[in-house]
């Protein structure tokens, strides 16, 4: 297990370096966009003198590197800074939205991951049967449609026609846990439909790949039932690639759902990031960017660690 521990330490170190590099890229990216916060907020109502006063108040008149290092210095002290647009602490803006984003992502994952794996196993079990083709076609269709289209179809069916679920998921503090769950059924279902295909196809492919191995043949020759062969022998050995795809999809559920947020009016991080970029509110963009990057790095690391643990050969390298 020492090798796993060493790997984790090394990867966390690399992760921090990556985050640092990402913060520079984000900063330069926003700087490269035309205009700044003062111009974007005042828009058509800008006067040269009000823009200048606005810049001075927010210290936007300082050179970029000074602003970056002052931000970095505050970050080292654990201070994410304040939104330039409305002066609120970034922690207050990001904190509850991140919780919302995680709430939706986890809810979708709790449905999507087991369903995908189960479907993948069944598809491998009855490979090339009508059932296999049917779920392949169904899942590949849902992933091929743009998310908003899937969302609108679900709203039209389940919200407008049948009136079972609400069409907007604007959860707030006044709601109980179950009310929140009820409110997010449709976005959760949309995300599930969008991510199931990847994981299901990967599970199926990995299992089928393993099925060609000699030890599977051995197991069959021993007379073990086909289901048992697939679940106990093939699937456990196919875990490594499956875990990697799951990690990628989980990351997507956290960072890639801004369209679903907009369609369902869900207050998550995505909309905050889009608004902040369009208004050039750099401290908020940085915070969102770092969170998204950290989620990616964290999930990738977890996937690698789990792959090692699930694979005896990697667990005990010779």
């Amino acid at each position, binding site marked *: 297990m020492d090798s796993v521990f060493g790997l984790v330490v090394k990867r966390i170190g690399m992760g921090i370096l990556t985050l640092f590099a990402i913060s520079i890229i984000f900063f330069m990216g926003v700087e490269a966009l035309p205009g700044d916060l003062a111009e974007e907020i005042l*828009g*058509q109502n800008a*006067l040269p003198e009000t823009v200048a006063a606005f810049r001075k*108040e927010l210290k936007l008149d300082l050179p970029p590197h000074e602003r970056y290092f002052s931000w970095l210095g505050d970050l080292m002290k654990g201070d994410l800074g304040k939104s330039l647009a*409305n002066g609120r602490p970034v922690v207050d*803006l990001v904190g509850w939205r991140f919780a919302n984003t995680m709430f939706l992502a986890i809810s979708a994952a709790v449905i999507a991951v087991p369903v995908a794996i189960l479907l993948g196993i069944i598809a491998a079990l009855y490979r090339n049967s009508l059932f296999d083709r049917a779920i392949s076609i169904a899942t590949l269709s849902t992933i091929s449609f743009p998310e908003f289209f899937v969302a609108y179809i679900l709203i039209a069916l389940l919200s407008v026609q049948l009136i079972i679920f609400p*069409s907007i998921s604007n959860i707030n503090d006044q709601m109980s846990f179950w009310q929140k769950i009820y409110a997010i059924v449709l976005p959760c279902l949309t995300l599930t439909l969008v991510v199931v295909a990847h994981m299901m196809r990967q599970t199926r492919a990995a299992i089928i790949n393993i099925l060609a191995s000699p030890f599977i043949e051995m197991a069959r020759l021993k007379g073990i039932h086909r289901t048992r062969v697939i679940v106990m022998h093939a699937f456990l050995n196919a875990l490594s690639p499956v875990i990697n795809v799951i990690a990628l999809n989980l990351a997507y559920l956290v960072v890639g759902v801004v369209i679903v947020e907009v369609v369902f*009016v869900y207050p998550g991080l995505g909309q905050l990031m889009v608004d902040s970029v369009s208004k050039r509110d750099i401290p908020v963009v940085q915070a969102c960017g770092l969170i998204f990057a950290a989620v990616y790095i964290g999930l990738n690391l977890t996937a690698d660690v789990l792959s090692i643990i699930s694979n005896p050969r990697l667990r005990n390298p010779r």
Partner: protein
Amino acid sequence: MSKIKELEQLFTKGKITRRDFITRVSALGFMAAVSPALLSSTAKAATPKKGGRFIIGITGGSTTDSMDPATLTSNMNQNVNWQIRNNLVEIDHNFNAIPELAESWDSTPDAKVWTFKLRKGIEFHNGKTMTAEDVIFSINHHLGEKSKSAAKAYLKSIKAIKADGKHEVIFELSGGSADFPFILGDYHLTICPAGTEGLEWEKGIGTGGYILESWEPGVRSFSKRNPNYWKEGRAHFDEIETLSIVDTNARTNALKTGRINYMDRVELKTVHLMKRMPGVNVSAITGTAHYTIPMRLDQKPYNDNNVRMALKLAVNREQLVKQMLRGYGEPGNDHPIAPVNKYYAKDLEQRKYDPEKAKFYMKKAGMLDHTFNLHAADAAFAGAVDAAVLMKEQAKKAGININVVREPDDGYWSNVWMKKEWCMCYWGGRPTEDMMFSVAYSDGAPWNDTLWKNDRFNKLLISARAELDKDKRRKLYWEMQEICRNDSGTIVPMFNQMVEASSDKLAHGPISGHMALDGMRTPERWWFA
């Protein structure tokens, strides 16, 4: 008789009041034709009832919104601002300035010194009593070197603000301004407690009909009725929930399924379907909002009025209204004064699409071979690029070449508008002729986006501004509209209607065209029937 049917419908749907209905039908001379049952059954709805939670789904909200009155940039914070705060002056649905926190006002005969008497005993939500000090603080917030206020440009005429006792505020202006009270009715100029700064703005302490309970920019605001509200017959709901719903389909579905009671910006492509929806009312109100296409007159060939005239004549306004606005608008007449404005020049001839005449003027200018670059992005207004392409086709019939240059939405107002020689633009309009002309057409105005300079026009503007006699003002403003129509560098192709939808459980008085959402005052003026 079709007119009467239309009025009947407007009345039964509550779009006009009983009094309006009777006056307008009487004006037609058809009062006898109206069923008496109609008047008795809906009269009840005209008495406001208290209670309920009013949920608004609104566009434009952004997570960067602020409650600082200096930077109220979206529909959402403008609406919330008027839930919780008041101005000195309110602008009513007939574009009159009526008393709000000021109970009366008076000016010197030259309209240079204005004295506002404040209402007594009005408390802010935090219990502090409102005095002249708060008013002066709130106006000064938009003035001075450190101001980042979007309202700064039209407060420039204020030379000094003084208090006379606790309940009188005196404004000294650099020049006479008969419409000064209207300026104080602008949404930025709400009154806040003296000394408010930084994050305190976000608490939204005001004197308004609702008290802000929670406010999350770009997401939601929640406010409760102010039990202590001083204004009579206003603010009828128990609670107001304002939701930022950027996506039009999401707003429509939310209204259809009863999750919200009100939405702005109905999708014009599907409005006919929405009108058929049970339980939903659609309103289309003409206001002061209009599209403009300004040319920079310091650049060739736009300095030649023949070119300007040719381009104005090469626009088919009827077609633009029909295709871009689906009929929800009115053709413009190349000046920014709307039919709802007081001194709108009704008799001024409507400019028509005339390719022959356009060609004639363009030939006179010797510019038939010139290619005119028209800069467009949907940041100017939704559909601006399509409108530009449509104009290009219309101009082709006059032998005029327009090249549509697609610009990025990002930074449109800072990099394209007022920078490129000819571009698409949008104005929300102003409640008075003076404000509109001063802000975008007078010489030296910071947003005079054409750099137009017409001596006669500028002279008339200053004399009309100080003129207190209505008939004389009318004459002056009519002449100015004519000058603007024939000489200015702006094409005003159309005035768009504000098309909004609401639950039929709601009732209201006449709807204002001053701003969207009933002059942004739905929470104060509407109620559940």
